[in-house]
């Protein structure tokens, strides 16, 4: 092969570099996902610490639920949310969600950072967490 040695070395180096992310992580535990904290005073006070819907539903669909709440609260003037089990909650980010989930960094941000998404809800709705 004409200049075969150089080609083989080059190909080997290329393959090593291209597969480096996989080779370097061999044997390591798979990324386990973000750890979310439910350790807030309001949640401790609840006798039944469950969200407005099931945890799996909230994990997958909370953004859609919040968008629906937004339209119902602002444009339709509704103030109550009846969940799938028939329980009634205040249809309000401030009064329902942020009372329990007052730990933005450990709860909301933990997952959003993991998923590399930047929702801007907190520019207005932050339950008084920031401020002078």
């Amino acid at each position, binding site marked *: 092969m004409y200049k075969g040695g150089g080609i083989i070395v080059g190909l080997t180096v290329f393959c090593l570099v291209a597969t480096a992310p996989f080779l370097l992580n061999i044997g390591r535990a798979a990324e386990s996902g973000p750890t979310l904290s439910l350790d807030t005073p309001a949640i401790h006070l609840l006798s039944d610490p469950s969200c407005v819907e099931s945890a799996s539903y909230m994990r997958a669909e909370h953004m859609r639920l919040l968008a629906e709440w937004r339209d119902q609260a*602002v*444009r339709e*003037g509704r*103030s109550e949310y009846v969940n799938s089990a028939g329980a009634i909650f205040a249809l309000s980010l401030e009064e329902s969600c942020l009372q329990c989930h007052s730990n933005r960094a450990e709860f909301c941000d933990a997952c959003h950072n993991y998923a590399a998404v930047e929702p801007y809800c907190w520019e207005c709705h932050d339950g*008084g967490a920031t401020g*002078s």
Partner: protein
Amino acid sequence: MKRREFIKGGLLLGAAGLGGALSLGALRPAAALPPTGAASGARRWGLVIDLDKYNQSADREKIAALCHRRHNVPDIPDTKTEIKWIWEDDFAHSFAEMESPYLSDRIKEMRFPVLCNHCAEPACVKVCPTQATFQRPDGIVNMDYHRCIGCRFCMAGCPFGARSFNFFDPRPYIAEIDPLYPTRTGGVVEKCTFCVERLTAGLPPYCVEAAAGAIIFGDLSDPASEARRALASGFAIRRKAELGTEPSVYYLLGGGGGDA
């Protein structure tokens, strides 16, 4: 083309045009139907401000202070960028078109609380390109900050200067953020909402609560409402009523027991 065919074609075209115009006419009434589904059943929320009571006995400073504190309205000292939901002015500035050189001292010295008039024909709603500001079935002109793109057409459209623009993040100018109400963000317009969040809970707006009887809130479409009874008790004026926006805030002179 023969003349006969030309005339036939023209007749067909004319018939098609007439049919189109008729079908458009049939669509129009459907689009103009009044919105339904008001939670409270009220059709036209309004305020009646009893000027004598307001100027004589009300704790005037408390009214705007309570409103602004509860709604996280920032206190920005620069008048070019300040944000106001309700504030005070004198007669010449509130009712410029009624100004006269021989105004009585009593009227000259009076203070007038001014706020969004929640017009029945709101110019701000008509000019908003995103429907961020909209009229609820109960007559309240509300803002959906999520949709506001900050174009400020509504500020140009409002004849009362009732709207303020957030030129920057307002949070540093809020002394104490009320955690139960959202703040606004830079780039949106805001204004009085007649406390829609309190109305759904069956409570009156904060200004009404703080004014201790000097500001009366009620359904203007209901002749038995407190607001309508107050209007019947004296002479009431509205700001710039001649513009035809039908403001829902009335200023009552000589209402029940006043000295006017």
